[in-house]
């Protein structure tokens, strides 16, 4: 073989140096383009994120199906097209993106215009549509890694905007899916970046004992365990989510510790504590578990309601759990149609707070009941046997008040002790209000100080403070004496958005100690008890925002506070009306109270002992409707029945406190309600009416006590938003199960509203004695109260044959329907879908053809270059040269290195006399191989120069080989 002469190769260094002239313009700096991303996995995940975000956004903003289709079509097509054309910039892709952007912006302005015309501008939905469009359009431009990152960021923005609307559990699953996809995206991107940073070197693993088996196992591991690592992200996200302090908790921690530092106290860093008694977990959908007494859940299986009589008697209405004073008039039930199992007879509240004050009003109509059973006729509205008490201004005595067309003065309303909506008798599940709040709170409405043994009333509203809007924005309440926050008392600020969904009179439900309220109408009246009243009745649809201070009681500290006898004496003098007890109070109560409270400790300790005594020794049972009770309520509860709803509990607690000299009063309002997974808001219904007590503790002002067994006030439950709190809670639930303490069944829709308001029927004892709530003449059913407690059958029908207990149970066990109001899609008077079809679908078809063509071409190319999955350009050139050399009988064996291949030129073994090799071929190949090795393993910055040289050399080799081949 002839030794060829070395070819002369162009060398940059040999070129004469360019002379610099002063006028020579500065050469433009080369813009380095980011290399196109080849990872298919990365692109698939990016497409998945885009699709997920688009679907999520469209679902929650109620986009039209046409729009969803186009967005999805855009995202999928764009992802594919951008992959196919990642190495080139095409005009039509830019055109599509620009045109799509214009359409998206046009859609935004059109939606805004429509909203503006309808007078209700809400920019969020159009903005989400813009983002969705951008997300879909950006998929056409996923060329490099940075583009994919931008796409993921747009997805995050879209996701965040959607989260403003979406508050249901489904969104949590979507969020987790999103996190998982993002984890996959990051993984694929990390792999891609790592690959681009390093050359794939020769590597091997030491096989151990059983080589094949080990190799197989390791192969599996190497593929699978990356996803195990990725799965850690969503799991850790959930854990972090559960233990992440909420913004309010964090602010509380800071503010409380600032106060502590100012007072010279030790800092308390247990920020996870929730000051309002319920941990933040309580606000997490699906994790909240409200105590029974709040009506959040519970309710024993309903006793089967007996079939009613002949239709004359309304069943006794269920208690609502907000009753303070049992008693109601006896009378005929309402004559409305009642449906067994859910019917709420207007026969009267079994345990209405002020039931005894019911007058001679007519019985309310029987409520409508469940849907899935045939309804029996409700009893007729009860007729009052006797004229009502003077104080009886029960609006429910007239059916018409249910519609809210009869209004009362605030004073009347206060004295009537309306805790609930007027028509609560008929609509136990009726929604009172929706609250957007980060915490579960009690909602305080009214306060009573006077107790006559059978009912609670207000002695005097005192001097009312009028609060008007400050700067047309909100009413400032902080200056009102009754809403004064004790200096030094730890409290947290809480903002709540409340939307009233029913006509509820004049009393505004607010949490804790309100400091600011943004109520649409002026003025807001605040009485001496801190209750807020409006001048005009609060109508459904009213929306207001309240900023409250929620005290964070440190019970340990309160227990340890020294007892100041002087303070106690001055308190006794100052709060004389809060120590009032009914005449003829049974001395047993005082004796019991004193024995329970003891003589040691301060006021708080005594009140706490009484509270704990009631919680431990008395049973919460709102189905107790002792209609015949004519005894004083507290005595009856403490010594006779030993069970009752929140009313008797509260009454007993307040009476006992007063009996030992602690100023106390009764509070009516609502519990935190149910958290609606669908809306992300707390829904307070009629059944959530509640009562609790307040005791004056020097230095802490009025401290709330919920004496019911599951009451939370004043101290938060141990649960908090920390991970350990969750674990502890889980263990407690487990231990409950093992102890056969079966969890409380799901809340039952109460049969009849337990009326905190006066009996709706005429069931009223004329002499003001406690009436028998809703005693039905014909009905023998026992309706049972709201607040999720066991309810007796509310069947008050006329004994319809199908008014069976079973039917009743089935209907009552049905979970209350959650009213989720989906946001309304903005109107679209202009139908531009056809236009879009014209603009998009036609190019889409063209695109599709182009994409298919490109796919076919790529498939052919892939079939040709099948040795490597992702070959570098230099590798492709090398393979091409290897193919070319095969024409001159220089074959590359699988184990051959480039040097080995070169050695075959001069190898005698491979010498074939029939093949003549061009003398320039070997030096060309040698140079090519040098460049190839430098490109594969070197790391200098001359890659581009090498690439061009290699291309040139490979072309030369290609032509040389063919020329010789043909010559032969």
């Amino acid at each position: 073989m002839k030794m060829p002469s070395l070819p002369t190769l162009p060398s940059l260094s040999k070129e004469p140096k360019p002379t610099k002239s002063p006028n020579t313009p500065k050469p433009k700096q080369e813009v380095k383009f980011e290399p196109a991303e080849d990872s298919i996995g990365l692109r698939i995940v990016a497409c998945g994120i885009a699709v997920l975000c688009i679907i999520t956004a469209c679902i929650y903003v109620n986009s039209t199906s046409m729009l969803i289709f186009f967005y999805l079509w855009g995202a999928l097509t764009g992802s594919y097209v951008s992959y196919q054309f990642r190495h080139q910039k095409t005009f039509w892709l830019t055109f599509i993106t620009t045109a799509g952007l214009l359409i998206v912006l046009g859609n935004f302005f059109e939606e805004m215009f429509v909203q503006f015309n309808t007078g209700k501008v809400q920019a969020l939905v159009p903005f989400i549509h813009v983002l969705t469009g951008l997300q879909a359009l950006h998929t056409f431009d996923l060329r490099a890694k940075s583009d994919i990152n931008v796409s993921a960021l747009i997805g995050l923005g879209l996701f965040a905007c959607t989260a403003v609307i979406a508050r249901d559990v489904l969104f949590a699953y979507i969020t987790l899916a999103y996190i998982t996809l993002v984890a996959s995206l990051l993984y694929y991107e990390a792999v891609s970046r790592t690959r681009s940073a390093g050359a794939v070197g020769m590597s091997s693993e030491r096989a151990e004992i059983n080589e094949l088996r080990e190799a197989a196992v390791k192969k599996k591991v190497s593929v699978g365990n990356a996803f195990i690592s990725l799965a850690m992200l969503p799991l850790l996200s959930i854990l972090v989510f559960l233990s992440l302090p909420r913004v309010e908790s964090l602010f509380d921690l800071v503010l409380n510790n600032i106060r502590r530092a100012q007072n010279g106290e030790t800092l308390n860093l247990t920020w996870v504590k929730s000051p309002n008694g319920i941990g933040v977990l309580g606000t997490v959908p699906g994790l909240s578990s409200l105590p029974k007494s709040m009506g959040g859940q519970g309710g024993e299986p309903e006793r089967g309601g007996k079939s009613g009589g002949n239709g004359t008697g309304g069943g006794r209405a269920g208690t609502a759990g907000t009753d303070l004073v049992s008693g109601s008039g006896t009378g005929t039930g309402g004559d409305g149609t009642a449906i067994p199992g859910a019917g709420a007879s207007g026969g009267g509240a079994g345990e209405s707070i002020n039931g005894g004050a019911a007058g001679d009003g007519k019985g309310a109509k029987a409520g409508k009941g469940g849907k899935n059973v045939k309804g029996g006729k409700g009893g007729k509205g009860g007729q009052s046997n006797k004229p009502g008490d003077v104080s009886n201004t029960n609006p429910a005595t007239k059916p018409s008040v249910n519609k809210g067309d009869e209004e009362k003065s605030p004073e009347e309303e206060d004295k009537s002790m309306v805790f609930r909506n007027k028509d609560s008798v008929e609509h136990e599940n009726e929604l009172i209000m929706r609250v957007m709040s980060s915490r579960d709170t009690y909602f305080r409405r009214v306060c009573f100080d006077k107790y006559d043994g059978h009912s609670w009333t207000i002695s005097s509203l005192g001097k009312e403070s009028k609060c008007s809007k400050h700067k047309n924005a909100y009413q400032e309440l902080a200056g009102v004496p009754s809403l004064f926050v004790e200096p030094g008392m730890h409290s947290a600020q809480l903002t709540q958005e409340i939307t009233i969904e029913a006509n509820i009179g004049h009393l505004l439900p607010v949490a804790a100690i309100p400091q600011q309220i943004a109520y649409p109408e002026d003025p807001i009246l605040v009485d001496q008890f801190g209750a807020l009243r409006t001048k005009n009745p609060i109508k459904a649809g009213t929306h207001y925002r309240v900023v409250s201070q929620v005290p964070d009681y440190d019970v340990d500290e309160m227990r340890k506070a020294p007892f100041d006898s002087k303070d106690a004496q001055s308190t006794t003098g100052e709060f004389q009306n809060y120590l009032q007890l009914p005449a003829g109070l049974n001395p047993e109560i005082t004796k019991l109270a004193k024995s329970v409270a003891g003589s040691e400790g301060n006021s708080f300790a005594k009140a706490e002992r009484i509270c704990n005594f009631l919680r431990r020794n008395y049973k919460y049972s709102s189905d107790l409707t002792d209609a015949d009770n004519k005894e004083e309520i507290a005595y009856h509860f403490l010594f006779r029945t030993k069970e009752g709803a929140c009313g008797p509990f509260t009454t007993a607690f307040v009476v006992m406190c007063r009996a030992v000299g602690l100023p106390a009063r009764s509070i009516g309002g609502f519990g935190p309600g149910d958290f609606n997974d669908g809306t992300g808001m707390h829904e307070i219904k009629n059944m959530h009416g509640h009562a609790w007590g307040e005791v004056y503790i020097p230095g802490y002002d009025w401290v709330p006590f919920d004496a019911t067994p599951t009451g939370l006030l004043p101290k938060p439950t141990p649960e908090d938003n920390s991970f350990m709190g969750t674990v502890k809670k889980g263990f407690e639930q487990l231990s409950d199960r093992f102890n056969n303490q079966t969890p409380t069944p799901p809340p039952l829709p109460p049969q009849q509203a337990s009326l905190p308001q006066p009996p709706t029927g005429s069931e009223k004892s004329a002499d003001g004695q406690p009436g028998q709530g809703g005693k039905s003449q014909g009905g023998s059913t026992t309706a049972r109260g709201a607040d999720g407690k066991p309810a007796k059958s509310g069947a008050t029908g006329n004994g319809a044959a199908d008014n069976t207990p079973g039917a009743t149970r089935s209907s009552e066990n049905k979970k209350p329907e959650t009213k989720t109001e989906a946001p309304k899609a903005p109107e679209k008077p202009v139908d531009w879908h056809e236009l879009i079809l014209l603009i998009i679908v036609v190019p889409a078809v063209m695109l599709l053809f182009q994409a298919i063509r490109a796919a076919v071409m790529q498939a052919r190319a892939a079939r040709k270059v099948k040795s490597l999955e992702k070959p570098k350009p230099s590798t492709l050139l090398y393979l091409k040269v290897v193919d070319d050399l095969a024409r001159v009988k220089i074959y590359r064996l699988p184990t051959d290195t480039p040097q080995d291949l070169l050695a075959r030129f001069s190898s005698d073994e491979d010498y074939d006399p029939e093949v003549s090799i061009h003398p320039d071929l070997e030096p060309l190949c040698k140079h090519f191989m040098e460049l190839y090795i430098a490109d594969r393993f070197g790391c200098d910055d001359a890659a581009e120069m090498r690439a061009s040289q290699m291309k040139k050399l490979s072309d030369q080799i290609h032509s040389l080989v063919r020329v010789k081949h043909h010559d032969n």
Partner: protein
Amino acid sequence: MQTLLKGFWSKYQFRSKFVATPEGEEWGLKALRIGFRDSPNTKIALYLEQRVFIAALLVPLIYVFAGETTNQWFYLIAAGVISAIVLGLMMPLWQVLDVTTQCSLPNNSMAGDSVLLKITLERRKHTKLFALLFPVKWLLVRANLVANNGKSSVLKPMLVEHVGHESWVYAATSPLRRGVYHLHGIEIYSCFPLGLAWWSRTFELKSETEEDSRPSIVVYPRMVQIEGNFLYKIRSATDSPMGLVASRKPTNVVSSSVRGVREFMHGDSPRLVHWASSARVGRLLVREFEAEGLPGYDILLNLRANWVNREQFELAVSIVHSLMNLGFKLGGAPDLLVVPSLDGENKYLPYFMKDMPALPPGLARSGHLLARVEPLKQGKASATQPTSLGESAHAALLTIRPTANETADSNLIIETVDLAVIPRTWEAALAQEAQSSKEAHMPVHEGGIVNRRGSGKSTGRVITVIERLEEVVRL
């Protein structure tokens, strides 16, 4: 301070004439680097890229937004971002902490050859379940092989997809240039699995104070076998009518063929005395071998010559290396003379001589020297030690010098080199150069050429002009 340093550097006598082209661009991570030493021989560094800061910025934004909207799912999104940051920071750290490395490499190589390094990666002992849950994947491994005049590694990071109990990687360098390469350490990088942050761990092979004891590769200049036909030209280039016969002591006789006898010279081995002839003529005669008949030579390499570019200098060094080998092959012991002198005190030595091992004169020493030499810029010649031209007055002095540009076109760059034989009187030219800096622009050889044309001392004669190393073969 900066100006001072610049001034010092501009006057530094051993400043390299050509800016060393980087062997490899440092694998760039545009990131904030936080490094610390976790053990005497290992360092750990965290590289925080822009994306981490973006993610960290997103967390409070989403968090505050969650508080404003009272939507729990914002907290979930924020928790996701927090978790990603935590995992993104912790898992790569786990990866690099769980792996130890070792490396083996050859001691020497030749310019233009690739070197294969074997890097062994070993995980700490773990159970299979543990390895399943916490795999070590997608590692970047880089041997930090740095040339003595370079700043960055000549090796790209190598990708290791999965590290089981033990894995090894072969890293092939690109064709190396002449020089000495030190293996500073092995670096492993990981951003698995989320790619939010890079962690690196550097396994230093030796501490900083023991720099010389680091594993190194000496890459000698390229060398070709020279036939030696040019040697006859050396004879005619000398002043002696006898030529350079038997000019060298047969210290390394490779030829066993005896050509004749000659008179004993100081330094001849007594074993070579031909006693019969000595007795016959009455004076000591020693055997003269065939190889001794060839002319001996020393080689001069002037680092301060007017080298036009690095390729020209590399060509010259390769020729010198080949000539040195030829000299030793022929049985002589040619001296390699370098201007400026590299035999002075340590403080006068250029940077590339700092790690020069102490070797006796010979091929090994010249090889090491030629592996290190760099063309130097013009400096104050008086500051350097005068170059010793050796003791032998009989051996010719060969030099490889850049071909002078004799045309008027000053833009023409001539990359060829001259093989010239020069007398040992060129020291005077060197002194001249020291006196007149302008004239000393071309210190030795240009001056020599001028002198050769008639004005002044004759400093030698060009034997041939060489363009490529391969041409030397038939020289």
